[in-house]
């Protein structure tokens, strides 16, 4: 974004002059490729993506996997859009899976972040009939898998 640079210069002899120059060029330079988008734009983009009427299972899953790889917890509106897309594609399991994935992104601060998220998405959960993982009974492990190294 743009920053206003101020430069104060002074001459050598007794006369001190202040030169205040405004430069309108973008002074701070990020040496990454392309311009960084704002959080707002990012959220809008993903919400719009999930809200697409012609989204299919492949794209939904790819977007979920991509979000999972990012160092962030998705905003409630992105989660709501994803859940609605699951409803559109008639995939209940995917909705629950995504909720589990979001809980995983909360990491060690799950007790702070998840209650807020759940409160925000509760209307959607109730209207679509999606259960949270805890309500499903998947808050704790249910089944055990045999260790591949001892087969």
């Amino acid at each position, binding site marked *: 974004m743009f920053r206003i640079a101020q430069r104060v210069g002074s001459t050598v002899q007794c006369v001190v002059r202040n030169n205040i120059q405004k430069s309108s060029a973008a002074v701070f330079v990020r040496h990454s490729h392309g311009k960084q988008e704002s959080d707002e734009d990012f959220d809008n983009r993903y919400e719009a*993506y999930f809200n697409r009427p012609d989204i*299919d299972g*492949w794209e*939904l899953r790819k977007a979920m*996997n991509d979000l999972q790889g990012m160092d962030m917890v998705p905003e409630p509106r992105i989660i709501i859009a994803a859940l609605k897309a699951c409803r559109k594609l008639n995939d209940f399991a995917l909705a*629950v899976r995504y909720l589990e994935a979001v809980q995983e992104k909360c990491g060690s601060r799950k007790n702070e972040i998840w209650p807020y998220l759940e409160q925000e998405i509760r209307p959607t959960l109730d209207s679509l009939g999606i259960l949270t993982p805890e309500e499903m009974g998947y808050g704790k492990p249910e089944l055990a898998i045999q260790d591949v190294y001892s087969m």
Partner: protein
Amino acid sequence: MAGRQLARTAIIACRLPQRSICTSTVCRSDQVQLDPQTRDKIYPKLGNREIVGYGMNGTAHYIDHTDFPCPAIRFKENTPEVLALREKEKGEWKALTLEEKKELYRASFCQTYAEMNAPTGEWKSITSIVLMGMFLTGWLLLWIKVYVYPDLPKTINREWQESEVRRMIDMRAAPVEGVSSKWDYEKGEWK
């Protein structure tokens, strides 16, 4: 190979996955439809399971990983029971019982996140093996001391040590900061 087939229909963009125009693979609402060659390459190994997405790396494998919530294929095969449940899934989800919901989940996924993250108890076997190893090493060292090492030299005893120190004091060895500096020569004893 198969990965490239699946990957060709999606973008490897880091931001927005878009689909490239590809004539060989078409994605429809739930099922990926493949051309015959790809199908023959992937499908015998897959059983009757549908491919549903890109997965971890574009290959049609089922992998449980916390970083990739949506694997490329469903976990269980499309048996008649599962297909019946899928039909029911198209209606109101509130009409599904908890059992049915769990069945649907397990049909698509093997382990839940809780199960993936659950502790394995492996630390107990690791600790016990390490301690057993240390125990055996202790016995080995004892055996080596008894049977391998030669006798200690005859100079390793108290009298010899004392007379050595006496000799060092007599010849004023290390007088500044060492042995002789600690000896009081007038009194003939340690300071």
